[in-house]
């Protein structure tokens, strides 16, 4: 049986000015500007669309992060109606990935066991970790569990033929990445396992990290899942993505790109 292939899109919903010292665990002497984009992703094939991550919505306000459109509005522009999305893969529960659940009223959410226990567990008393999580979004997820709307994965799991998730940890304890079969081969949505291309190229991870060893391993796991082809790995926050790939339509220029 041949696996179905999917079209994969990145939808940009926010951006932020940042710097290289904020981008690497191990600093180099020069602090240079290095901006960040915020994305959600859509995977379409076989008449279904799966989305990856929920971004943040207007409930979350933190200064510099410039919300251009809610993730739901962004998907809508791409022609994906958020209300008809049935399955959302949530790579991890940070505020910029786990936020707009109310805009997806009919979806179930795929999450790693260790991500939920991390987001509700002992490490969240440390500001360093709490900074990444927004309690209202965590609460949304706990309620979703009790509504039978969370599907837990322990390690690796198949979402559909040709779409699998893989726990890598590192950035958060239950960080997972997504492998998708496309016309060009296996594509890996690394989300925050690899924030920027340079994090991967320099083997110097992003400093928002729970376990540095797992974060470094996660980068290798992503490469392995991409059959060794680094070009098939899509980092979570790199603005270069918008230049490397092209918009599916002129109208979506600067908003969405097709990744496969």
């Amino acid at each position, binding site marked *: 049986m041949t696996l179905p292939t999917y079209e994969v899109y990145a939808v940009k919903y926010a951006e932020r000015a940042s710097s290289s010292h904020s981008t690497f665990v191990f600093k180099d002497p020069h602090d240079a500007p290095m901006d960040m984009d915020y994305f959600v992703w859509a995977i379409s094939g076989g008449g279904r669309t799966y989305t990856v991550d929920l971004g943040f919505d207007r409930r979350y306000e933190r200064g510099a992060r410039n919300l251009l459109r809610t993730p739901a509005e962004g998907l809508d522009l791409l022609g994906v109606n958020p209300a008809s999305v049935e399955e959302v893969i949530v790579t991890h529960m940070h505020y910029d990935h786990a936020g707009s659940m109310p805009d997806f009223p009919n979806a179930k959410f795929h999450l790693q*066991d260790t991500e*939920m*226990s991390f987001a*509700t*567990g*002992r490490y*969240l*008393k440390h500001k360093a970790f*709490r900074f990444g*999580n927004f*309690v209202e979004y*965590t*609460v949304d*997820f*706990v*309620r979703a*569990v*009790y509504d*039978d709307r*969370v*599907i*837990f994965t*322990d390690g690796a799991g198949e979402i559909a033929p040709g779409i699998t998730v893989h726990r890598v940890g590192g950035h958060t304890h239950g960080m997972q990445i997504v492998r998708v079969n496309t016309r060009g081969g296996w594509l890996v949505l690394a989300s925050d396992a690899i924030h920027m291309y340079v994090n991967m190229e320099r083997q110097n991870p992003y400093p928002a990290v729970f376990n540095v060893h797992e974060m470094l391993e996660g980068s290798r796991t992503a490469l392995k899942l991409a059959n060794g082809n680094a070009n098939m790995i899509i980092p979570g926050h790199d603005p270069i993505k918008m230049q490397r790939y092209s918009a599916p339509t002129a109208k979506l220029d600067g908003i969405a790109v097709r990744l496969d």
Partner: protein
Amino acid sequence: MVDMPEYEVYAIKYGDHKRMRQENFLFKDPHDEASSIDFFIWVLQGGGKTYVVDVGFEYREAETRGRSLHRLPSEAVRMMGADPGKIDDVIITHLHYDHAGDLESFPNARFYLQDREMAYATGRCMCHAPLRHPYAVDYVVNMVRLVYDDRVQYVDGEMQIAPGLSVHHIGGHTDGVQSVRVWTRKGWLVLASDANHFYDNMAIPNPFPIVYNVGDMLDGYEKLRGLADGNEDKVIPGHDPQVLGLFPAASSELEGIAVALHEDPVGDMNKVWRRTK
């Protein structure tokens, strides 16, 4: 060795529910009869401080589940002469609705909880209705908020809270249920909470039917005996109405409501453990 204060330990009943005895056992029990489950919180006083074990449920959940709430758990604390607003340390044995509801009445407390209890109460086991049923999502969510307010002290296994006062992971009933061991004038006393619901569950043994892992629950009975230095009389079950008759009342006004567990029993302990034929 650090001097351990002797604690006074009180069980205070805050509610109850009529049910059949058969409902208390996993495996069919030959006897069925009208029975009752009592709901308790526990107050510990020693070393100049007051500690609270569990915070029961409040009016909303009592109504939802048709349980009799005689007094708010925080009111029960007040009846023991303590101000809930001034309690620093509350031990939460587990997050079931009848143990973790009245959190807001303790605005200055730190809550001691097992890592595994939160992971259980927010994780994949809650995708199963029977395991989810004893949890109230609003209570779980309140505890999550307390985590983000840095008011939860997580415990991985066991922890000393003060000299002569410690908590111990037992598991079984839920993945993260913990029991309390406290030093008293008669030695170590163990508040089993729901690691053992009724004397009969542990005596037969025949586990309470709300159970996550039967092996851990049965092993738990042994752990509880061990924590009580082998003297099961000093293991206090979490829901047994007999507790109120076995120990002296905390005061004459609190007859039938609160008992002093650190005092010698006034009832026949042999009978509850089925030692007499």
